[in-house]
């Protein structure tokens, strides 16, 4: 196991380098430039735009820029934002806590809804409960988050006036009041995101459980006189978890990467909104840093998922 781990981690280094080359090339070739806002302003002479491009090294060949980025990154210098003119790591660190809190909670919420509902629905396929759960799940993923988010705002903020819909990272209150305010402002984005995610998770869990529930060993377990509860949890769920682990591992990097649409709607200052602002402003150093961290997490969680497969089903081996 240990050698396997070390081998996988060693492979990860060249593969991440390869990914970074491709990311950098795409960003360098993608259309747009960071100084577009100046373009419509008659007061800014074209020479200034050119001087700025030169001072940020945008006129160098891609290869030179990539090597410069790589060597800086190796020394812990994440780069310098064109738009904010501060270091990229400061920008990301400012956004990280909020992102982890909001997106992380929504993932937990999604799993807390999806696992019990999916399993219960699968043990009673085509029952009334199953039908209702399915229909709600279909509604859940047919409606995009920009739509459900707006619906929530209209109902809970505008009509009922229960929750604020502008998320603030600096609540002035302290103590219990702080937690209360935090809860009030976070509940809508977390719910919107969590339920959207839960809808598809529920379908996967249900399908995975249905796949194993009729297998012979489950019947055997029941025949041995084990309680239904024990059969469901120990025998069915464990074997049905492989697709769920895969999906959760796919979603974990998003906990860092944020949720673009929801963050925009509720003005959550997360990494998703940092990324989209950076993309719209063509602030390449920020885009590169965020996507690169994201790809590291993708690789890492892929590895974790592989290890978990082996634990869930000991016959899977990676020697």
């Amino acid at each position, binding site marked *: 196991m240990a050698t396997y781990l070390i081998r996988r981690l060693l492979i990860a280094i060249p593969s991440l380098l390869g990914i970074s080359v491709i990311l950098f090339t795409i960003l360098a070739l993608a*259309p747009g430039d960071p100084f577009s806002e100046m*373009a419509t302003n008659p*007061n800014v002479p074209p020479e200034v735009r*050119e001087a700025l491009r030169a001072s940020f090294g945008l006129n160098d060949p891609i290869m030179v820029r990539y090597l410069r980025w790589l060597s800086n990154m190796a020394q812990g210098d994440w780069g310098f934002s064109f*738009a*904010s003119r501060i270091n990229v790591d400061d920008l990301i660190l400012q956004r990280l806590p909020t992102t982890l809190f909001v997106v992380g909670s929504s993932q937990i919420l999604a799993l807390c809804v999806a696992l019990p509902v999916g399993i219960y629905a699968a043990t009673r396929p085509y029952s009334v409960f199953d039908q209702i759960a399915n229909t709600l799940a279909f509604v859940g993923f047919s409606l995009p988050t920009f739509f459900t988010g707006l619906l929530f705002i209209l109902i809970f903020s505008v009509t009922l006036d229960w929750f604020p819909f502008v998320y*603030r990272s600096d609540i002035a209150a302290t103590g219990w009041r702080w937690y209360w305010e935090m809860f009030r402002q976070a509940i809508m984005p977390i719910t919107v995101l969590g339920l959207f995610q839960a809808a598809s998770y529920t379908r996967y869990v249900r399908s995975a459980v249905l796949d194993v529930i009729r297998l012979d060993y489950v019947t055997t377990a029941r025949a041995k006189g084990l309680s239904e509860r024990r059969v469901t949890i120990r025998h069915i769920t464990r074997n049905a978890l492989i697709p769920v682990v895969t999906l959760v591992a796919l979603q974990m990097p998003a906990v860092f990467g944020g949720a673009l649409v929801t963050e*925009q709607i509720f003005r959550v200052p997360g990494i998703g909104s940092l990324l989209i602002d950076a*993309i719209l402003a063509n602030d390449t150093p920020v885009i590169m840093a965020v996507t690169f961290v994201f790809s590291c997490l993708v690789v890492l969680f892929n590895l974790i998922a592989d290890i978990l497969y082996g634990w869930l089903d000991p016959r899977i081996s990676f020697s």
Partner: protein
Amino acid sequence: MKEQEIRGLVADVKEGTLSRRSFMQKMAAVGIAAPLATQILIWNDVAMANATLQYKPTKAGGGGPLKMLLWQAPTLLNPHFASGTKDQIASRIFYEPLAGWDKEGNLFPQLAAEIPSKANGGLSADGKTVTWKLKQGVKWHDGKPLTADDAVFTWEYAADPATAAYTTGSYKDITVEKVDTHTFKVIFKEATPFWADPFVGVAGMIIPKHLFGEYKGAKSREAPANLKPVGTGPYKFAEFKPGDILTGERNADYHVKNQPHFDTIEVKGGGDAVSAARAVLQTGEYDYAWNLQVEDEVLKRMETGGRGKISAVPSGDIEFIILNTTDPWTEVDGERSSVKTKHPTLTDPAVRQAINLLIDRDSIQKFIYGRGGTATASFVNEPKQFKSTKLKYEFNIEKANKILDDAGWKKGSDGIREKDGKKLKYVYQTSINAPRQKTQAIIKQACQRAGIDLELKSVTASVFFSSDVANPDTYTKLYTDMEMYTTTQPQPDPERFLNQFTSWEIATKENKWLGRNVSRYSDPAADEAYKAAQKELDPAKRAAYLIKVNEIFCEANVILPILSRTRIAASLNNLSHDHSGWDVDSWNIAAWYRS
């Protein structure tokens, strides 16, 4: 109104037989807008009007927090690097210029003791020198006094090409000389009729020499004060998270008595314009939201809640269409839409005239923009003295059909007109923005009825407005038959704005498409009038030249103005605020108060 009559009225104001207000009204009646009228008065030594917002509180502080919502979040706080309005609004809370522009286009002193005029010796007779006096007793937030050295330094800082300041256009061609601790001179190379540009408004914010002195030129990006501003403004810096939130607290030493009213200020960014309006008008979570480019119907509905109100102020921004008279589909010397080519059909003036008749400006205003714009046929609309009174618009499908019939364009079997095998089929491009897509739909339908087929294309704004040389979809490339966008007029004077109608500004491959004349159309008469206006010190004659430039392009139907845009903001009912189309929304934030 004749030049002579204006002079008579000015004399009356000077003698006190005619009030300023009546003068303004008389000028407005003949189509001369307030900003120019003001300029006429200054030139003739009549003092400027006062602030447009009456400040009622009798003591500073006690107003609680002021919460502003900008749906584009500020990302930096150095006013000379501020790339967009969002950054300029944020830095204006901490920094101030010598003077700002109020919504009527009056120059209003902020750090200046008074507005220069010929009477107070501020303006030289040759139009080359302006002498500014700084207000006494102004302190930076760290307690150091403001002096003429700071102003001179601001010029050195912004003029240095290595600093790469966005404001450099206002400073690179002038020299600044210190006279005494609180007086300095701005010297222009040529006689400059519009002198109120350096140290004024958006580009004019003065920065402290003692904090930025070491960070001039190439080192400018390392200055700690870039992120922790120390200015002279009504609020002191507290905290800033780029792209998210900015907070400040009241400056107890502010140089205007009893101001500011609020104890703290918060500027939150992000989201979209519709929900920003909602947070003010419907839920009241915020006091003020800016630049609401939202369909008016939606805003009106939100206003019915009774919590907040919309205010619109005129600006010089114009939404317009360019008809490309060069050929966008043939490549010559590595560029399309080259001035060496001719458009196969749009070079026919009849076709251009017909298209102009097919734009239903009134409906576009009534059903899409509402208070956000006024239908117009003139490229320059504000200040009013620069607006052409001759240009008129009309929406008339029959007339367009007749013009095309007469010019020999016959409808083919597919309903599209053609002549000599050339069809009237165009690609009509704009940036992505809901009102623009609706405008496209309205124009497309009208053109269809006249046998002109439009293919609609929309480009994401970050690409469309970029200066990326490699991208074919930028607005300056004009690789399309028709193009629509809004161009901004930053000052209440259209001289620099109108350089987009001169032949030397044509965007070509040679100047990397950075030229300001995107239409590629040129006319020697327009060039000549423009050059004459640059030197003319008499405001009335100068306005006449600039109007001529505008009319030449609009009458050629190359530039089809659609709407003169206004700036729209939402505020809570109890907030008294003061925003201006000639300066940023926070230009006079010290005077805002809650009643």
